[in-house]
């Protein structure tokens, strides 16, 4: 299969959906003339024009709130938030309007709104340009939360988001944009929500990775293999809805689990995953449920400190070895 980057896969999903559905459009800060700060929408203005590739004012609240309004009258907006760090500027619109519009109206509102958000630390960008907000809105019913880890999933999950009738927070990790991988060319290739992927199967320990930590879990799995530990690597792909069954089945098989994400440890996505397993899979566990995440300090500017604060494959490797007692 042809290989393209995560960034190209996201653009391809947007372009294909925009070609086949005039209701789909992209709106955000510098997505047009500037080609997107991360280059994801590169060239889209040339194809679709200012009408459908809309540069907005620096007004996150209105970007998301007006995305909702457009969705309520039948459009299928894709809005981009340049850095996940800025998501809270629109916090109220996400939590109180977008998430609740359908339920509050007795299930009548359709909200086909895709909110594309960059996540993760691009390196020495300090505390306001490095955060991983995946868990910030997990407590709020009404949103779907998606964390693609590969180019194929990025394309397939984004298409499911754009074609769906519910609001989606779609988290794109900045350090994955340049990563290449095989991506189907079929225009109707989609990846359904709520289905975790078993990225590598194994029998000794389950490594659950969120977003970029899937790659790091695979690296850890390789190193673990070298010491005779056969790790299973699982990517939940969507945090809401969460495919509990696949996670539980894996843990039932391995009896050991390490959950990792780049978000801070405290109340990150791993807290919910760990709580679900502690509630529904504890009888299978031969040891503690270990969580790997950024330390609970704002992301520091210093590369040395940042490197110490962010989680990596060695943290996963060490945790897994501890669990396996070798």
């Amino acid at each position: 299969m042809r290989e393209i980057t995560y960034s190209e896969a996201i653009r391809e999903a947007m372009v294909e959906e925009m070609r086949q559905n005039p209701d789909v459009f992209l709106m955000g800060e510098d997505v047009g003339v500037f080609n997107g700060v991360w280059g994801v929408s590169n060239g889209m203005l040339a194809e679709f024009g200012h009408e459908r590739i809309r540069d907005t004012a620096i007004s996150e609240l209105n970007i998301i709130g007006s995305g909702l309004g457009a969705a309520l009258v039948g459009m299928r907006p894709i809005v981009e938030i340049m850095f996940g760090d800025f998501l809270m500027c629109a916090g109220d619109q996400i939590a109180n309007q977008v998430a609740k519009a359908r339920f509050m109206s007795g299930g009548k509102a359709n909200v086909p709104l895709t909110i594309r958000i960059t996540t993760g630390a691009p390196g020495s960008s300090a505390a306001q340009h490095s955060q991983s907000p995946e868990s910030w809105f997990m407590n709020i019913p009404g949103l779907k939360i998606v964390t693609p880890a590969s180019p194929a999933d990025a394309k397939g999950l984004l298409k499911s988001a754009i074609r769906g009738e519910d609001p989606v927070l779609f988290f794109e990790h900045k350090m994955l944009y340049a990563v290449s991988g095989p991506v189907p060319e079929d225009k109707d290739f989609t990846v359904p929500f709520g289905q975790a992927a078993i990225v590598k199967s194994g029998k000794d320990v389950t490594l659950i990775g969120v977003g970029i930590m899937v790659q790091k879990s695979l690296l850890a799995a390789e190193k673990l293999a070298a010491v005779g530990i056969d790790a299973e690597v699982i990517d939940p792909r969507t945090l809401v809805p969460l495919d509990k069954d696949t996670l539980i089945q894996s843990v039932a098989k391995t009896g050991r689990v390490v959950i990792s994400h780049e978000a801070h440890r405290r109340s990150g996505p791993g807290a919910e995953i760990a709580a679900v397993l502690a509630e529904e899979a504890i009888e299978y566990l031969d040891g503690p449920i270990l969580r790997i995440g950024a330390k609970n300090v704002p992301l520091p500017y210093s590369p040395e400190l940042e490197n110490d604060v962010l989680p990596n494959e060695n943290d996963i490797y060490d945790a897994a070895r501890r669990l396996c007692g070798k």
Partner: protein
Amino acid sequence: MQTGPDIKEYKERYSIELLAELYRRMTLVREFELRAIEERRGGLIPGFIHSCVGQEATAVGTCLALSAEDVITSTHRGHGHLIGKGGDPKYMMAELAARSPGYCNGRGGSLHIADFTIGILGANGIVGGGIPMATGAALGFQMRKEARVAVAFFGDGASNEGSFHEAANQAGVWKLPVIFFCENNLDGEGTAIHRCTPIEDLAIRAESYGFPGVIVDGNDVLAVYEVVKTAKERALRGEGPTFIEAKTYRYRGHYEGDPQVYRTQEEIQSWKEKDPIDRFKAKLLDSGLLDDADLEELQGSVILQLDEAVSFAANADKPAVEDALVGVYADTHNGLVF
């Protein structure tokens, strides 16, 4: 401040049907509020009520200047807007009573009533929360080249929220067909406007966004009707938004039970003398287009309609508890979401 046309002009400018409907709907709004308050006391309605008694002209004058395809976003004080836009008191009362056939199947209550089939995108519990929504709806209309406008209702207090500023700015840039309709009733909950807003006329805020701001007598239903019509025409010509500030007043507390320590009886009284319904009634009678009998008949029909609404609500089923989890998502991915 824009005021309504002279009585002499009524005949050539308006159909009797329109004049009668303006009167009927304002009466319906007022009686709906009073009845809802009564039913709340009586226990039929479990939730809070923010009544718009005294503000009937802004709601009805605006909505009757719109067509069915136009949309509105409303507020916590939204009953007038909803009835104005064609909301059925039956389903509204049923919603206030938290019943299954209510507009939101009992999920939303007064603060969240919506009916997408008649352009009501929703009341709102968040001050200023619906303004970007109206702006986005207008964006949709513009992109689809539909001859429709969106009206964002909000209060004087809401004009101090960031949501208003961001939405108005973007609407100005894109010349969106949206009308920012500010009901300036001089108070925001318990805080008088002069204590939280450094200007008296909010309409001047429109200048910050490059579109016109007009001040209208919010207790003159035809004055409101005219400024909204003008704003809609402007929007449909592609010239962009209009900010309308309607000076009005709410007679009752912010919500039922509000002791109203923040304002004087004199102030309330002075506004009652400018009552939108009384004033319009007097003009209609002077105009000779409608007589007492006509107006009493309308009044009677309204009372009848509300009796029916209340008994409909009282006899309607309550939502089934088994359905508590329904309606959060379009699909639940085989129940995975919960």
